[in-house]
């Protein structure tokens, strides 16, 4: 059963149109990956889903509810949280405060709490009193993921969580994904690192120039298919 759905999603920045009728769906407990080159519209899609960008109400539904026009602070309590691109930790808050603030919009208790986050990323427990921005890039990314999990989301949006990180660090961070999946959350992972995305995703959408150009399971898609959908050549 479809849980989170977009139907004919369009988005604009002033006169510039960034999305042209995007249809995606996410089933309960599923992980989907959204891949595409820079400027394909992936981040715009994430911003629309999370409510940072407002759209028409019917363009996005969560559990049958029209959320397209809601603001981010209204959407979080419905069970959707985002790890924003660039991590965006709060510099005035310590690591632990950054995690705690993630629970601000939480309405019900769930699987995740401070202790579980520290078990997921033990290094954060050691650095709990440091300012969030004093950490390394990979550790900051862990805080950003933990912060989003603290609201016990039913859907977690991860926007470019590997961006700017060393391969060994990316591996550490992706090691946490199965544990997040086990907690029952559905995931939407936006990635430029196709390999990582394919490993964790049940299904993949490929975007180009504001449109979905390819959709399928990682096993069903060939390298050439993806290459064509990604760069728009040879198709």
């Amino acid at each position, binding site marked *: 059963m479809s849980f989170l759905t977009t139907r004919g999603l369009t988005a604009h920045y002033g006169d510039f149109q960034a999305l042209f009728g995007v249809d995606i769906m996410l089933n309960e407990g599923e992980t989907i990956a959204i891949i595409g080159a820079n400027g394909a519209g992936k981040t715009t899609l994430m911003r629309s889903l*999370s*409510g*940072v960008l407002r759209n028409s109400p019917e363009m996005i539904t969560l559990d049958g509810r029209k959320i397209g026009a809601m*603001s*981010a*602070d209204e959407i*979080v*309590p419905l069970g959707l*949280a*985002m790890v*924003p691109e660039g991590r*965006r930790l*709060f*510099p*005035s*808050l310590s690591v632990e*405060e950054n995690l*705690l*603030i*993630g629970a*601000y*919009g*939480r309405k019900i208790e769930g699987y995740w709490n401070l202790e579980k986050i520290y078990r997921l990323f033990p290094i954060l427990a050691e650095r709990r009193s440091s300012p969030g921005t004093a950490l390394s890039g990979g550790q900051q990314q862990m805080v950003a993921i933990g*912060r*989003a999990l603290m*609201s016990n989301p039913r859907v977690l949006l991860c926007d470019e969580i590997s961006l700017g990180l060393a391969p060994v660090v990316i591996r550490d961070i992706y090691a946490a994904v199965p544990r997040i999946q086990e907690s029952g959350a559905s995931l939407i992972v936006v990635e430029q690192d196709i390999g990582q995305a394919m490993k964790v995703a049940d299904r993949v959408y490929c975007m180009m120039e504001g449109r979905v150009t390819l959709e399928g399971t990682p096993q069903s898609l060939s390298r050439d298919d993806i290459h064509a959908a990604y760069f728009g050549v040879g198709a």
Partner: protein
Amino acid sequence: MIWVDTIVQGVLLGGLYALFAAGLSLVFGIMRLVNLAHGDFIVMAAYLILLLVTLLGLSPFVAAALAAPIMYLTGWLLQKHLLNRTLGTDILPPLLVTFGLSIALQNALLEGFSADSQRLPTGAISTASLDLGVINVGVLPLMTFGSAIVVIVGLNQLFYRTELGRAFRATSDDPTTASLMGIRPGDIFAKATAIAMLVVTLAALYLGMRSNFDPSIGPARLIYAFQAVIIGGLGSLWGTLAGGVIIGLAQTIGAAINPEWQILAGHVAFLVVLLVRPRGLFPRAVD
């Protein structure tokens, strides 16, 4: 001996200025907004206390306790329905709207209460003093200073020890990301201004008990508050207290030399600090 007395008076006067400034400092720290009507709200709160005192025959302290929730609500509504609409990258709208508010408020008060000077009835407390051996210290100035310290400790606790304080700091850092945490920035700003209005009420209580007030004195209170905030360094509440003390000291010392120099001496102290420490005495590390 007269100099010790002058200095103690100056420090205690600084407590009053820190009370004027704490609300301004709080609001600026969270939303980078300077409310040019801040001084006029202090005067308005003083009239509100006076009204409750005269109508209900209450003591000023009880009247201030009743005025506080009214001012809290005023601040909340003001921020939520007026000032939030002016926030953005352009500094003109908030400045001009609060300037218009200042003019409107002053003249509404003038219409409602006339230009006559008023004072809150204080009874014995206004003349009571403590004999500290070398000098006599007034109880009221001492209470003012004590209240300023309590307010600053309280605001610091709120800021660094509570969930609301975390939300204040997070929203101040990055309102968009804060909204991804389920925080509604507009509501956070409204709460901040509402809390600032509680401090304004306390400042008004002491202002009204210690000196005469009339509808025109708001802008000067804004200026003292502003000077205290800048001298202390933006965003530092203890710095604001230090700034208030410096202005209070300068004014008292100036007045001791020549009564006409009181206000001017405060301004000169401010300019000197601006000259040697443009970012204030206790600037925030990151800004």
